[in-house]
């Protein structure tokens, strides 16, 4: 699979943001929550490959390493216990950046090039351009990017862009012992997920789904959920989308505001040319 770092989209950029000559296949991670055994090998692999941590664990009453993603902990297995129609279930899901097709972080970012989406769909933060405003965290429907106090920058999963770029699979995928994590083109991963969902349905999990939410244009992480009617049981939003308020101000209020401000300036100049200065008449 050819992988380069061609850029498809760049934050706060107008023209010339795309560098791509080539049409590259979009890549995706496949996560099957039904065959995850919660071993956390992916967590360790992520820390090692990315030279992160160590981050002290936090006891939350489950096997979960931390309550949430962390600027130095980008890959977290979430452990949830639920009473389901099939009885008690122990649900584990690998949480990380979802690499949205339409990333809310990128839309919210005010700094040119601080968040980029590569042609292969990977969404990445460029710390050199990041101004640490935190808007990406607010804009992300999955609450993924985290502000690092030490660096003053945002940090998150890169989908191992440095590995993928040279034809390797991401570190987390490499480490998974049950093959519940897989990596390939988005099309292949979606096909694999669909067949797995069919198998689950045949085994009585009527609500099984492949989580690939359309509200953000689909994600670069497709997740098989046995209880797809309850994505929140896995810590996933039901219908994630980029905030309409964000779109309202960036696409409507901002151009209107520019017109209003420039219009007032022109009106003032026009008024002066037509009316001239207001001064007392001679002899007043």
């Amino acid at each position: 699979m050819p992988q380069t770092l061609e850029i498809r989209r760049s934050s706060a950029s107008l023209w010339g943001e795309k560098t791509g000559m080539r049409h590259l296949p979009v890549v995706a991670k496949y996560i099957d929550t039904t065959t995850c055994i919660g071993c956390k090998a992916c967590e360790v692999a992520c820390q090692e490959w990315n030279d992160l941590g160590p981050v002290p664990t936090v006891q939350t009453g489950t096997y979960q390493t931390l309550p949430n993603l962390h600027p130095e902990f980008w890959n977290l297995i979430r452990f949830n216990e639920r009473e389901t129609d099939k009885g008690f279930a122990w649900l584990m899901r690998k949480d990380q950046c979802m690499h949205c097709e339409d990333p809310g972080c990128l839309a919210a970012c005010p700094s040119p090039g601080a968040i980029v989406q590569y042609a292969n769909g990977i969404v990445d933060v460029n710390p050199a351009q990041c101004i640490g405003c935190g808007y990406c965290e607010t804009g992300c429907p999955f609450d993924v990017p985290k502000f690092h106090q030490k660096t003053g920058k945002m940090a998150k999963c890169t989908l191992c862009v440095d590995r993928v770029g040279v034809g390797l699979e991401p570190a987390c995928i490499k480490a998974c012992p049950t093959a519940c994590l897989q990596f390939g083109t988005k099309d292949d991963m979606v096909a694999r997920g669909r067949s797995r969902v069919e198998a689950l349905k045949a085994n009585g999990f009527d609500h099984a789904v492949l989580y690939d939410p359309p509200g953000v244009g689909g994600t670069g992480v497709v997740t098989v959920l046995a209880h797809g009617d309850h994505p929140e049981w896995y810590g996933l939003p039901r219908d994630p989308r980029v905030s309409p308020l964000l779109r309202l101000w960036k696409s409507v209020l901002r151009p209107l505001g520019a017109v209003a401000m420039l219009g007032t300036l022109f009106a003032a100049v026009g008024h002066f040319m037509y009316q001239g200065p207001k001064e007392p008449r001679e002899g007043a």
Partner: protein
Amino acid sequence: MSSGAPSSLADPAVLRARRTEDVVVGDEIVRHRLASRVIHWSVALLFFLALFSGLPIWTPVLGWMAHLLGGLNVCRWLHPWAGLLFFLAMAAMFVHWLGDMRLEPPDREWLRPRKMVEYMKHEGDEAEVGKYNGGQKLFFFAVALGAAGLIVSGLVLWFPLSFPRMASELATLLHDLTFILFVVAVVLHVYLGTAAEPGTFHSMVRGTVTRRWARFHHPRWYREVTGERPRHP
């Protein structure tokens, strides 16, 4: 006092008088004493500092402004502090000028749309205009309200991760809307205070206006200050 004020400027008595507002100094009248002018220019300077450090964050079209201040990282640091100081200066200005800005019946009359159009067409009847006209008072209260909106939303945007997501999103919207209206108002304010009405800018720099200016733009204030009777043509 034949050829105008400049010859009298070095007179210590005149300089002292300039620290008191609404007094006649030779051929001129002190309209803005030193304290008023210092407060006004503090507000103005901090406004433009906040504006030019905020605009490149608002849109990449104005990214070049960030370079004038040392880059977008500097703006991200500078903008909230400039905004905070701007708000404090605005608060001082509000207290300082509130007494002069109470809306009176002639001001309400002045603020009727037809009257404002007449004013802009230089056809208005200004006979009852005191030290500040209805438009100036409206501007005063509008920017005070605007500054309140900017500080409330600005504090949320300064620390967006300390507030619920909906609060950050609404703050963005409020900050955006308020600043646009603020800029529109400031453009009008600067225009009316400089090119449109000669002599006005001088009052905010040196503090004084000519009798002629005062009689023309603010007749009632002129009568109050000088004790002259209204002139009936």
